[in-house]
């Protein structure tokens, strides 16, 4: 079938700006792991939809704020993560769990009128914790998170992420591709046998197939369209899901497996796709997990933040850092295979590029693009 996605959806900055407003700002976005925020004053900073956000632990309670000091717009937390009070190093302003401001030398140097002083506080964002996963929503009136992911997906994310260990390795890849290429790639079960033939496919034999039920649903959608917001939200929930994906070619067997509390006990590749831009997988039957967060930066730029962690340690073991580093470097091979092909595609796109042709096995991506284009054309709003 012929895709309706125009090349502008991947290369045009004005399109990208509209996409941020219509898609990302109303939705819950992953921002980090709760295990990284496990002590008072622990924090994470990320830039989501162009807005700098800080999540800070206040005596066990997580709060999300815009990471901009209301005085001179200096970022309050400068590092991507750490343990530090919510305190601006420029002029010493500090902030409490409500975002209220303490200003040193306030009377002597600032003399704000009461009505202005009342407005000086941090902009707060909604925050939800799903197991070990922390999400924020930049909208003033957030969508209930269950409406975005569905109860079953939230339950699966909760159960699996509670198996995570507290020792996490992470890095960021600076990808030169549009973020949508990542979600299309992740929902394409046919590419691993070619693109990852010498890496991931050696361990897991992914088999793409056509779901006649899924194709029939797509045909109905193409004919009837998305009638209303309720239908649009229901369809969006179908883009998220997770659990067992494909059996492993051989049982996982690494020395560290004896040191961790495995998530479930099945020799399967687990896969969770949380729309729009979060992917979690366990390529070794629940002994360890990779979390990939695709953060759109520009039409042709995506930061790919990658976390890797094992299942919970039964007790500390000396080589845990080496295990994480080895896994990260092993994963790097697969990551680069994906990134390279997405960057190749991005480079080929130009305003007059023809639309791609999708096979019936790609019915999920076809449904997703139909939904996406209706959103971008204003046929419904989130």
């Amino acid at each position, binding site marked *: 079938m012929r895709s309706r996605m125009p090349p502008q959806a991947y290369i045009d900055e004005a399109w990208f700006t509209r996409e941020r407003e219509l898609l990302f700002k109303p939705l819950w976005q992953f921002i980090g792991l709760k295990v*990284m925020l496990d002590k008072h004053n622990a924090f994470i900073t990320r830039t989501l939809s162009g807005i700098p956000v800080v999540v800070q632990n206040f005596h066990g309670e997580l709060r999300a704020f815009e990471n901009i000091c209301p005085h001179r717009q200096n970022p309050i937390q400068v590092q991507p993560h750490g343990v530090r009070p919510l305190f601006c190093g420029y002029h010493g302003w500090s902030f409490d769990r409500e975002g209220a401001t303490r200003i040193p030398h306030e009377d002597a140097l600032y003399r704000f009128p009461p009505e202005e002083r009342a407005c000086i506080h941090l902009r707060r964002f909604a925050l939800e914790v799903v197991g070990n996963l922390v999400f924020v929503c930049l909208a003033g009136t957030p969508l209930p998170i269950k409406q975005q992911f569905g109860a079953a997906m939230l339950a699966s994310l909760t159960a699996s992420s509670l198996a995570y260990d*507290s*020792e*996490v*390795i992470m890095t960021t*890849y*600076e990808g030169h591709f549009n973020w949508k290429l990542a979600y299309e790639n992740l929902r394409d079960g046919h590419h691993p046998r070619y693109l990852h033939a010498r890496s991931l496919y050696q361990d897991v034999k992914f088999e793409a197939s056509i779901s006649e039920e899924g194709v029939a649903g797509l045909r109905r959608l193409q004919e009837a369209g998305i009638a209303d917001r309720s239908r649009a939200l229901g369809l969006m929930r179908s883009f998220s899901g997770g659990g067992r994906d494909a059996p492993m070619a051989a049982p996982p067997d690494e020395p560290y497996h004896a040191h961790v509390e495995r998530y479930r006990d099945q020799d399967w590749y687990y896969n969770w796709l949380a729309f729009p831009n979060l992917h979690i997988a366990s390529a070794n039957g629940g002994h360890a997990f990779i979390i990939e967060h695709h953060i759109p930066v520009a039409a042709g730029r995506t930061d790919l933040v990658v976390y890797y962690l094992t299942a919970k340690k039964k007790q500390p073991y*000396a080589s845990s850092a*080496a295990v994480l580093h080895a896994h990260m470097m092993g994963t*790097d091979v697969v990551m680069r295979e994906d990134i390279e092909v997405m960057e190749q595609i991005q480079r080929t796109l130009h305003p007059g590029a023809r639309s791609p042709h999708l096979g019936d096995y790609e019915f999920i991506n076809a449904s997703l693009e139909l939904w996406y284009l209706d959103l971008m054309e204003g046929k419904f709003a989130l």
Partner: protein
Amino acid sequence: MPCKHVIGHGPELVRALAAWRSIAPAAALELRPLEIDPAAGQAALVAALDGLEDPDGEGASAFVALDARFLNGMRLDLMASLRLRGIAMPALVEPGALVAAGVRMDDNCWIGAGAIIQHGSRIGFNTVIGAGAIVGSGVTVGHSAWIDEGVVIGRGARIGAQVTLGLGVIVGHGRQIGKLCIVDKAGRIEQDIAARTFIHATHAQPIVIIGA
């Protein structure tokens, strides 16, 4: 005649055997190489050492020659297994290395040809200082580190245990690099680096470990 068990893998084993031979002729020291398979797993590696517990009583010693894999942990594990067997593991200082008087070097250190270790430095056990590396005065290098060939460490710097410094790295005077770090990207380091930070030339941003 005293013997030395030289345990290791690949080019490091070949180099170590050549280095020990250059120090002691065959008539003075018998070298007994033991090639291990790093992919064999911890139990198999330790089992490979069976039979070394009871040397001939002629002053046997041992040396482990393995690269920086697994954050230098594999070399550390092998060395620890040998230590438990009570075998002496003196440092290897290759001909041409210049080690200032009073520099402390612990067991199983390996100082490559042409390396310079300046006054007041301390090199922890099981650490490898590559050929031509320069270690400034008053430097402390923790145990089981891997300092590649030609690396320069400025005076007073502190290098943590199991750190790997790759080709082309220069550590500024007084800088501190926490344990279990890798810096494998050429250039001069003028900021302290937190433990468990991995800076690879292949990665745009550092890889870091958070939590425990």
